[in-house]
């Protein structure tokens, strides 16, 4: 049921940070340099927070300094506005890792992350009506 992460070829090639004692289950955090929390801004992105690319992102020079996972996420964001959960599923990375990587991208000015609107603040019931009609029409 759960993938155990073994033999999935996802290990960072030639990764030096991989601590054999820690076992395969902590390996994904190697690509965040072992960080398990997003950077100084320390935001914890909601699973359904939407990630949008910045209108005026840093140039290609800075982008080329990003790691492959950062760039992979950026590519996904550019294709379509997506939630944190979708990015994790599409990039096949654990949510915790994606949160850290997105924190980096946010700080470097590559992306914006919208806080989801809590249902209690939904403007009106029109939205829910729309959802119901939309579900019927599926």
């Amino acid at each position: 049921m759960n993938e155990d992460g073994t033999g999935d070829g996802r290990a960072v090639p030639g990764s030096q940070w991989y601590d054999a004692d820690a076992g395969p289950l902590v390996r994904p955090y190697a690509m965040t340099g072992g960080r398990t929390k997003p950077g100084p801004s320390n935001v914890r992105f909601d699973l359904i927070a939407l990630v949008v690319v910045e209108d005026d992102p840093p140039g290609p020079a800075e982008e080329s300094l990003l790691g492959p996972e950062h760039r992979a996420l950026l590519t996904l964001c550019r294709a379509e506005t997506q939630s944190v959960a979708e990015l994790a599923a599409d990039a096949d990375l654990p949510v915790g890792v994606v949160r850290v990587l997105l924190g980096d991208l946010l700080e470097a000015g590559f992306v914006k992350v919208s806080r989801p609107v809590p249902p209690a603040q939904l403007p009106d019931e029109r939205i829910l009506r729309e959802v119901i009609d939309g579900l019927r029409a599926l």
Partner: protein
Amino acid sequence: MAYERSENTGAGGGVDATALALKILVAGGFGVGKTTLVGAVSEIRPLRTEERLSRAGEAVDDTGGVAQKTTTTVAMDFGRITIRSGLSLYLFGTPGQDRFWFLWDELSQGALGAVVLADTRRLEDCFPAVDYFEHRKIPFVVAVNCFAGARNYGAHEVSRALDLDRGTPVVLCDARDRDSGKEVLIRLVEYAGRMHTARLLDSVG
């Protein structure tokens, strides 16, 4: 791109995007059909989350020889239903074992509502989910997954057996069937809307 709408602005203050994402949870006991339901109504994808075992509290994960293991991967069900550009429903289901309950604390934040799947052959399996959402005042419907071979109970009987608050909908469903699954979600959204209105009315007087 998907952000050209301006109608919904105002809600949520500093939200700079007007796209709306609504979260619906799918809960219930082990093997009751959560993954099946999410897959029937949406394009399902596995979502991996890394969880520290310590966060799972007394979680009795039988780590056997690997006692030093500090992080475990939990695969959740995850599905998206696009209502229109800028309005999506996100469905989340977690594995049914008790030791994954801690996942709900994050998931339930800001959720529109929840579906609690039940199997009448072992109704007690959904008690923890019912308790959980009742305590947190998260609107939920109970969806009875009608497995073949299970005696057919009426929605009323199930409601009584679970001692549900009056008004909590009970829907009979077949988790494998798309239309049936859609109906469950529709009932939930309708109910969440009613609860929402009732609370607004309460708060103004």
